[in-house]
């Protein structure tokens, strides 16, 4: 893959309910990314927006943000899915020979719709939807299967939640900044057995944007880029009954490709920081395995070992992850931003010392059906 990197990032503070419109959030994220990159909108050659019609309550959800995303007299398109896929597309466009720089921006206002109904709508209308299944109840199924298969316990899930909430306290963008204990998690309100309140990510409003540039476009920017060393996306099968919910072959396939591109053979050793999609606490353990950080079935061992804590060998989710702020769709893009800040040494109180190589991860579809990963480096 030719050289391509991230030269600007911007994100709004993530909150339970923001008064701004979609367009205002997008403008805030975009102007933030442009300011960070030290350029104006005229230096952006094309734009990719990320939004979802159900989450926005608008068919053609992208229409609301065209002005705010800088579409005027530019090529622009829209990915409907997690921001990590928007970033993939933005990167492809910067490598296509047609554009040197791409602005990618994602937005969502979880506060404006009904999350249960919106995620229920991703289930097949003929055979599944009437069960009332949604993101959380399907996640509960997956969590339960994982526990049965691997012997992971609810306390193991709680350890993830405790770690990430503790990390979130250091992230000024995070919605939830609250130190908690395993006991707090275990005692928190049951949402969908075995998932309790602190096992689940919150409902969030926010937006985030990144500026991607190929090598030729780099001369417009003053800061050193964070290079994209490898990137890949893969989708698993759809019907929950067809998939083995206790493993993530799609994630394995995606990292195999991305690690190959980046020349990584031992991710646990070679990566300095990981930002993954912990929509629910148990997912972090599943993704440890998919990312090749822990052997199959041994995700719980890794959290117990402390290796993924801030002072461990490979900190995971120093930002607090999705458990502290889950703007749907923006999620993967925010992970890319966090990984970028880490490599630049601009992550403030949540900085992992000497971070040179990072992995950012995003998911789409029920129970983490599709995965996208970016390996970033200095």
């Amino acid at each position, binding site marked *: *893959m030719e050289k391509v990197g991230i030269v600007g990032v911007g994100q709004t503070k993530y909150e339970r309910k923001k008064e701004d419109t979609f*367009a205002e959030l997008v403008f805030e994220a975009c102007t933030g990314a442009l300011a960070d990159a030290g350029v104006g909108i005229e230096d952006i050659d094309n734009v990719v927006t990320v939004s979802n019609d159900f989450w926005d309550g608008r068919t053609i959800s992208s229409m609301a943000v065209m002005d705010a995303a800088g579409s005027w007299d530019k090529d622009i398109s829209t990915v409907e899915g997690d921001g990590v896929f928007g970033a*993939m*597309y933005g990167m492809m466009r910067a490598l296509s*020979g047609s554009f040197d720089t791409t602005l990618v921006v994602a937005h969502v206002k979880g506060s404006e719709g009904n999350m249960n109904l919106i995620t229920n709508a991703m289930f097949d209308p003929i055979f599944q939807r009437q069960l009332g299944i949604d993101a959380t109840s399907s996640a509960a199924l997956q969590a339960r299967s994982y526990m049965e298969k691997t012997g992971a316990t609810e306390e193991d899930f709680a350890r993830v939640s405790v770690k990430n909430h503790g990390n979130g306290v250091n992230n000024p963008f995070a919605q939830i900044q609250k130190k908690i204990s395993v006991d707090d998690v275990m005692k928190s309100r049951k949402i969908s057995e075995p998932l309790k309140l602190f096992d689940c990510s919150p409902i969030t409003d926010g937006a985030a944007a990144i500026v991607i540039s190929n090598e030729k476009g780099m001369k417009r920017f003053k800061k050193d880029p964070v290079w994209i060393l490898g990137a890949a996306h893969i989708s698993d099968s759809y019907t929950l009954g067809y998939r083995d919910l206790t493993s993530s072959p799609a994630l394995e396939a995606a990292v195999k490709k991305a690690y190959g591109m980046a020349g990584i053979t031992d991710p646990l050793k070679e990566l300095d920081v990981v930002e993954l999609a912990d929509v629910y606490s148990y997912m972090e353990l599943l993704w440890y395995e998919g990312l090749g950080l822990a052997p199959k079935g041994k995700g719980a061992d890794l959290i117990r070992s402390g290796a993924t804590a801030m002072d461990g060998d490979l900190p995971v989710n120093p930002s607090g992850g999705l458990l502290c702020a889950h703007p749907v769709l923006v999620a993967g893009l925010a992970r890319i931003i966090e990984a970028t800040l880490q490599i630049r040494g601009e992550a403030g109180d949540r900085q992992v010392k000497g971070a040179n190589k990072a992995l950012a991860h995003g998911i789409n579809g029920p129970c983490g059906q599709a995965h996208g990963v970016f390996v970033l480096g200095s």
Partner: protein
Amino acid sequence: MGKRVAVVGFGQTIGRSSRKDVNGVEIINEAVVAALADAELTIDDIDAIVIGNMDHFEGINYVDSWSVEGSGGVMKPIFKVTTGGTTGSSVAMCAYYHAASGMFDRVLAIGWEKNSESDTTGAIITAFDPFWERPNIGGAIAGLAVEASKYMSNYGVTERDGARVAVRERLHALNNPYAHLHQEWMKGMEVDQLVELLVTSEQNQVLAYPLRMSDMCPRTDGAAAVVFASEDVAEKIAPIPAWVVATANRHDYVYLGDLNWDVNETLRDASRKVFEKAGIKEPLKEIDVCELYMPYSYAGLKWMENIGFCGPGEGPKLLWDGTTDMDGELPVNPSGGVMSYNAIGATALIRVGEAAIQVMRKAGTRQVQKDVNYALSTGFGGCSWADVMLLGKNKPA
């Protein structure tokens, strides 16, 4: 930097008002199977997939995840692109960029819609701003009717001009086995006779003056798929690949109220960009065939002007002179166009596919006879957005 890319295969389902015999996943699969057969490839040969439709027409969230077993995306890279009416062309452009980036050699673009599964106008209304536009809008028809009213007022264009466009689309569709609307009764009748019939018939209901039923596009259940291939493999797959010479789009507007009602600016600007990139100075002369995304008849007059095929107000002349008929200098919509088949997520992609098969000389009974060096396809949707893609016989320099 960047690979050259060509279309090497195209498949579509036959347009129908309602395909109760298949669910969405199955209709997608039909188009995919057809496209792969056309390219003589298997799903294993496909390196990545892009899919698009408009969510609220079927009421399914995360369609790329839901349909993966039909699209062939299981354990492949796949995501969804959606931009309203331009979805199909945005999907085509996305597949093009996948291959142009050098990361994927063979990319499948899929567009589909089962319009029968929902209330089209109701769903379209939700595209518009809930505060400023939804309370009074009348769906797509109203937005198009107002454009037509201004065009008529500016240039003295008449109902007969609009009807003449509709007649052309219907006659062209008779050559297209996939078209949804086949007005067999029109066969063998004189054009002038048909125009007269359309403007005087009481059964041809006026929806919003000057638009009558005959001026509008249908609602179709359909799916289409196009295979894009990078220059590393394209020539091994297709005897005459349809090379993507240039592509550009403009989605400048958020509110209908901001539009310039005299000129379709986005189409003008996107076309200008494509012609500039391709080195085309005289579009009417240099382009051999055009699949113009025309959701209603008057667009076939006004938008031809905005693309630059003729000057302002000259659209009717181009039409009545026969320039846009099958044996004219610039045949428009040999497929019968959107007015003969409109499965929204697929529609703009079908324009690309139909333009491609003209270049590839695979258009069968709707093949333009003359040499096709350049075929232009356009997409339209949303707040008067435009996508333009120019395909060519010769590999770009």
